[in-house]
């Protein structure tokens, strides 16, 4: 039993980390990003090829891919983010969905549908504490998710940029009137979210196979975690991740994978209907940025 708990918590950390970026993009900016899974997928492939061709360890790649992603979105992709932010929610759904399709199928075209994985020194390593076993790679992700949660939380709370982001999220018009360049804020936050997601992707490579359509299941989990935890709430994403991770570990024993998805979707609707702000979101803020 305690093995299941440990597995669940570690999984929870993993889920939290892959959802953290979405929390910034959807939770804070309220941009419906249907390409979230594909961001992860691209990052995983980048890390894969880095390892395959240059023997660069994914953990190192992750630290390189993330800042590169950030720069990419701050520069090249900037006009696109602006356009995205100005579109209606349905427009965002389709733009990001379109991007997701393009990325998925580019991957398919370039890399074929084969499942690929890396075999680093530690990717199969297990640690045993008493009777409990867990994989080193997952432990690493778990620890990093804690680090990121704390870091992001304090960043948003204390730093000037963090406050600027929160102000813009709460009332874009007023933020503008107060001299905040809201466009820059949107781009920055999006880029940050994308970078965190890319980072998580790199870390996932030692744990999961990568193939073109792997994005969907991650995206689904991310959306649920973000909504369950509370849009815009950093600790909420962590807790939400834990809840989903534990649920998955405990129920994995009893129910099949597709039924698990069914349960997730039901939880999803239930939260939306009963408490759309999520566990830690501020009541009433779920409608911010929504017409």
């Amino acid at each position, binding site marked *: 039993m305690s093995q299941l708990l440990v597995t669940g918590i570690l999984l929870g950390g993993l889920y939290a980390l892959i959802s953290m970026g979405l929390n910034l993009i959807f939770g804070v900016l309220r941009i419906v990003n249907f390409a979230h899974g594909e961001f992860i997928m691209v990052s995983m492939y980048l890390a894969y090829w880095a390892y395959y061709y240059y023997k660069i360890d994914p953990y190192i790649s992750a630290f390189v891919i993330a800042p590169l992603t950030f720069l990419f979105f701050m520069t090249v992709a900037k006009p696109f983010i602006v356009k995205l*932010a100005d*579109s209606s*929610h349905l427009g965002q*759904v389709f*733009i990001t969905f379109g991007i997701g399709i393009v990325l998925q199928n580019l991957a398919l*075209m370039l890399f074929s549908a084969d499942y690929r994985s890396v075999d680093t020194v530690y990717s199969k390593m297990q640690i045993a504490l008493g009777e409990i076993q867990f994989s080193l790679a997952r432990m690493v992700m778990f620890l990093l998710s804690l680090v990121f949660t704390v870091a992001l939380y304090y960043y948003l709370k204390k730093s000037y940029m963090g406050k600027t982001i929160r102000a813009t999220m709460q009332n874009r018009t007023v933020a503008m009137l107060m001299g905040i360049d809201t466009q820059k804020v949107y781009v920055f936050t999006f880029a940050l979210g994308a970078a965190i997601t890319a980072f998580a992707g790199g870390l996932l490579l030692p744990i999961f196979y990568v193939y073109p359509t792997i994005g969907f299941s991650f995206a689904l989990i991310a959306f649920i975690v973000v909504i369950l935890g509370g849009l815009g709430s950093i600790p909420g994403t962590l807790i939400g991740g834990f809840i989903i991770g534990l649920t998955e570990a405990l129920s994995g024993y009893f129910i099949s994978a597709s039924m698990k998805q*069914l349960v997730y979707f039901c939880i*999803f*609707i239930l939260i*939306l209907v009963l408490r759309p702000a999520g566990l830690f979101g501020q009541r009433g803020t779920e409608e911010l940025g929504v017409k």
Partner: protein
Amino acid sequence: MTMQRSLKREFSLVRIVLLVLPMLLALIIPNAFFRDIVILLMLWSTAASAWNLLGGFAGQLSIGHTAFFGIGAYTSTLLYINFSVSPWIGMFAGALLAALIGVVLGSITFPLKGPFFSLSTLAFAEIVRIISISWSDLTKGSRGIVIKYTPGFDKFIFDSPVAYILIAWVFMIAVYCVAVYFNNSRLGFYLMAYRESEDAARALGINTVTVRLKAVAISAGLTAMLGTFYAQYILFIDPESVFIVDNSLQIVLLSLVGGIGTTIGPIIGGYIMVPLGQFLRSALGDAVPGFHLVIYGLCMLLIIMYLPGGLVSLLQRRSFGGSRLKRPGRRRDEHGAVGNS
């Protein structure tokens, strides 16, 4: 704009040509491939039109409509396979079931705003899909159901594609007429009022819940009937064909491309995107897997980014897209909706 003039526009010469031409061409040109495309084109245009009744007129942007499509397909097929009920009757049974489910779903999810509503419809559709796979005792699961090819009018199976062309066309015209009715009726006006401003609509005496439930019932029912048509045309259904999210997104895309909230928009969208998709698939699909979808995805992207009002907005000054598909933020502040003091 008086009603007289409006009806004239809905059935103008251009419109009539647009609505009739594909059907006529399909009848005249005996090419099986061409006819197949026209039938699918009309099918999806109609599905998009049916979606548009809820999504365009009422502004309730569902991305889970494939659930209704599949419910229609499975209801009529299961009734036919298990109880020999004619699919014509099964079609109405499916429509009724879908309408009912739509109303129940609507009453739960209508209070949700914007993306939350859309995401909940997606979740719902996925739930239905997973159930259709797991409840294999009822639905035969992933194996799907094959309808034996035994032609007969009462069995809604025909040996000649001409019958399917005509039936699909009748569906398209019928749903178009429903859309025209929406554009020129109390129900339609009330839905549009809700779409533009819920508060204003309520202050004018509109029960926004009731009118939306009516719209979802009609939209779901019509979509289900199309599911039956699909089943009877392809003679094979499985969760991967009738319950997948791609269908939901396809019909929304068609409406967006053509012009959401207009009567002819979804149909124009279908005329463009369905042949485009088919063409891409046949021209590029086999050579390099995935390439045609890359192009399709790019087309989707570009159209949505640069023509939020759809193609109709290029032709008419009046479109839903112009005012709705842009985030309202800059012009007016919706915070504090009912004033401040």
